[in-house]
C-alpha cells in the first residue's frame, strides 16, 4: 500500500529529509521556513531522527555548520528563507568553491526593505551566482521528491556542489496537499550512503580552503562552472531515475506545458505555474495557442530545453518574481541571453510580477498574454521590463 497522506508542505520536506538520513541538521528559525526545522526537531525529540541536530545562533552559522559537517564527510541539511539566505551568501560561495555537497531548502520570501514576509523569488535569485545548484518546485509533492533528488545530485562525484531546493513560502510551505511518500527502503536504494572521496580525517591529512593566486583561481572557478554545465545530463538522469521510481515525471530540467504548437509561451518558476497552467488551458479553449515553460532547474540554466520548447514560438513572456534593480528580471535576462540573437528565435519580453506576495492570478496572466501579443503585433519590444499590476498612484 502506498503511503499517501494530506500534509503541510513543510512536513513533506521534513519527511523527505528524514528519509535521506542526514548525519547533521543545522536549524535557525525564519518565517516562512520555520515549520520545516520545527518538524525535524519534533522527529528528533521523538527519537525518530538519527541526526545530530545543531541549534545555531544565525543562518550564517547554519550554513557554516553544514559546511563543516560536509567537509568532515557527513550528509548535511539546513533550511532558510529571505534575509537568512542572504546572510548565508558568503558561506554558500565558499562552500560551492570547496565542493561541499549539502542540501538546503530555500523557502522563497521577499527581501527588505520594506520588510515583508510574503513570497517572491528575490532571495534565492540573489544566490544564483554562488555555485549552488537551484531547483524550483511547484507543489508539496514535487518538494518532497526533489529533496530526495537533491542529495543525489549534490553528492554525485561529477557534481559535488550544494543543492538548494527553492519552494514558495506560505503557498507551498503552509498549504496542505496530498503527498505520496516513498518507503525508506526505496529511498535507501535510490540514495546510497554518502561516501566522499575526500573528507577531513587524520589518517589522510589534507589542507582545505587554500589561498589561490591568479595563476590557478580561474581554473578553480571554471571547474565549478564546468561541474554545473557538464552536470546537466547527470541531473536529467537522476530526475529520470526518480521518475521511474515514483511514477511522477516532472519533465526534467524544465516542465514544458502545451508548448508544442504554442505561439505565445510564458516562462515562470515555482507555484505560480499552477495558476498559469489553468489559464493556458482556458486560453487554449478560446483558440489561443499559449504554452508554459516552467523552469525547474535554474542553475545550471537549461537553455537547451528552453530553446527546444520555445524556438518555434512567436513571443516568449517571462514572469520574473524578482528584479535586478536598474535592469530587468534575472530569469528574463537569462532567457534573452540564450534565445535572442539566434536565427528564428522568438521575441522575448520580461514581466516583473508577484513581488512581496502580490498575487499572480488569472487576470494577471491574461494581462501578460494580451500585452505580449500586442507588443508582438506592433513589433515593438519595450526597452524596459513591464511591471504587472503596478499602481502608479503610489509611486512618487
Amino acid at each position, binding site marked *: 500500500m502506498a503511503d499517501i497522506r494530506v500534509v503541510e508542505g513543510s512536513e513533506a520536506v521534513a519527511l523527505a529529509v528524514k528519509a535521506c538520513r542526514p548525519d547533521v541538521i543545522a536549524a535557525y528559525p525564519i518565517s516562512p521556513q520555520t515549520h520545516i526545522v520545527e518538524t525535524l526537531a519534533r522527529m528528533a525529540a521523538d527519537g525518530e531522527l538519527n541526526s545530530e541536530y545543531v541549534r545555531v545562533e544565525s543562518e550564517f552559522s547554519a550554513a557554516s555548520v553544514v559546511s563543516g*559537517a560536509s567537509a*568532515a564527510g*557527513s550528509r*548535511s541539511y539546513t533550511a532558510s528563507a529571505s534575509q537568512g539566505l542572504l546572510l548565508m551568501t558568503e558561506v554558500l560561495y*565558499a562552500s560551492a568553491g570547496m565542493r561541499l555537497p549539502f542540501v538546503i531548502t530555500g523557502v522563497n520570501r521577499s527581501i527588505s526593505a520594506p520588510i515583508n514576509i510574503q513570497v517572491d523569488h528575490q532571495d534565492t535569485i540573489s544566490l544564483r551566482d554562488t555555485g549552488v545548484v537551484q531547483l524550483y518546485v511547484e507543489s508539496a509533492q514535487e518538494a518532497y521528491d526533489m529533496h530526495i533528488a537533491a542529495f543525489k545530485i549534490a553528492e554525485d562525484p561529477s557534481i559535488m556542489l550544494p543543492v538548494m531546493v527553492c519552494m514558495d513560502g506560505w503557498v507551498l510551505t503552509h498549504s496542505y496537499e496530498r503527498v505520496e511518500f516513498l518507503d525508506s527502503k526505496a529511498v535507501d536504494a535510490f540514495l546510497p550512503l554518502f561516501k566522499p572521496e575526500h573528507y577531513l580525517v*587524520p589518517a589522510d*591529512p589534507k589542507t582545505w*580552503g587554500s*589561498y589561490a593566486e591568479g595563476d590557478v583561481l580561474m581554473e578553480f572557478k571554471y571547474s565549478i562552472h564546468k561541474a554545473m554545465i557538464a552536470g546537466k545530463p547527470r541531473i536529467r538522469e537522476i530526475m529520470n531515475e526518480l521518475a521511474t521510481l515514483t511514477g511522477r515525471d516532472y519533465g526534467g530540467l524544465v516542465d514544458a506545458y502545451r508548448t508544442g504548437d504554442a505561439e505565445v509561451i510564458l516562462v515562470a518558476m515555482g507555484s505560480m505555474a499552477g495558476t498559469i497552467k489553468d489559464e493556458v488551458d482556458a486560453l487554449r479553449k478560446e483558440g489561443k495557442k499559449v504554452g508554459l515553460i516552467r523552469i525547474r532547474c535554474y542553475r545550471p540554466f537549461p537553455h537547451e530545453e528552453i530553446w527546444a520548447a520555445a524556438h518555434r514560438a512567436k513571443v516568449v513572456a517571462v514572469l520574473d518574481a524578482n528584479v535586478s534593480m536598474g535592469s530587468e528580471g534575472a530569469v528574463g535576462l537569462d532567457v534573452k541571453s540564450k534565445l535572442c540573437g539566434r536565427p528564428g528565435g522568438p521575441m522575448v519580453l520580461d514581466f516583473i510580477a508577484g513581488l512581496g506576495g502580490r498575487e499572480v492570478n488569472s487576470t494577471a496572466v491574461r494581462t501578460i498574454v494580451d500585452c505580449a501579443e500586442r507588443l508582438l503585433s506592433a513589433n515593438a519590444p519595450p526597452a524596459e521590463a513591464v511591471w504587472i499590476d503596478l499602481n502608479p498612484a503610489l509611486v512618487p
Partner: protein
Amino acid sequence: MADKALGKRESLFVSGHRACHGCGLALAVRHILQATGNDVIVVSPTGCLETFSSPYGYSPWRVPWIHHVFENAPAIASGVAAALKAQRRDTTRVVVIGGDGATFDIGFGSLSGMLERGDDVLYICADNGAYMNTGGQRSGATPFCAATTTHPVGKASAGKTEKKKDLPEIVAAHGVPYVATASVAYLGDLRQKVKKAMALHGPRYIQIDTPCPSVWNFPSHLTLEVGRLGVSCGLVPLFEMLDGKITKIRKLKKRTPVIDYLKQQKRFQHVVAGEGSEEGLMAIQEQADRTIEKYNLLG
C-alpha cells in the same frame, strides 16, 4: 630550546610556510600541535595563519586543516564536531586556531553560539592585537594607546582610545569548562595548557599572546623577549580557569615596569618618548597595576 622541547617527534606543522621572520603565531602553532597530537582536525578562520600556511599546492599542515571564511571558524568547528559525533569517530578532536580579529570581532557571534551550545571544540585564539594580515588595523584586542593603521598617532590622536576587550572573562561567563591564557614566551606552559584542555570535553578556550615583529614593530629576534616583558609587567596575565574559577596563576617573580615592554615596540613609541606622553604611560601602568591586583600576580 623550542626544538629540544619538541623532542624527536615529527612536527605536525613543518617548515617552509610563509610566516614573517620571528612570527609568534607560527611558533605557537607548532607547539599547540605537539600538545594535541595528530588525531585532530584543525579549523582556521581567514587571517595570517591561513595566508602564510596555505598557498595552493603547498602546506605545512600534517593534520587535516580547513579554512572556510573569516567569521565562521567556530561554526565550521561545530559542524565538524557534529559530524564526528554522528560518525562515532570518538577519538578525533576539533581544534580552532584563529587570530584576534576573527575571535574578538567578526567571528564573535559565531564563537558565542558555539560556546553556548557546549560543542566539543578547543578554540585557541592567537592574539597579536590587530589585523596583521591586512597590515595592522585596530581590532577589539588592540591594547590602549597602541598605534594602528586605522588609529594612527597624529596631532589629534594618541593611538587607540579604548581598552582591550576582556575576552577570556567573556568566554568564561558562558559557563565553559576551561579558559586559559598563555604566551609564546612560555612554551612549556602553553603546551601544558593545551594538553589539559584536550583532556576535557565541551567548549574550551585558550588565548595566546603572540607578539608580531612586523606590526608591533620590533626586531624579529626579540619575539620571546617582548612576550616575556608583556607578562612580567602585568599586562598579559597568565592564568587558568576551570568551570569559571581561577585555579592557576603564573606569579611574577620579577615584576618589570610597563615602559620596558612598551619601549621595545614602535607602536608605543609616542607613549614612551613623545611630548605629553606621560599621561598615556601612566594610564597603561595603572592598567597593569589593576591586572596584577585582580589576578594577584605578585602574591
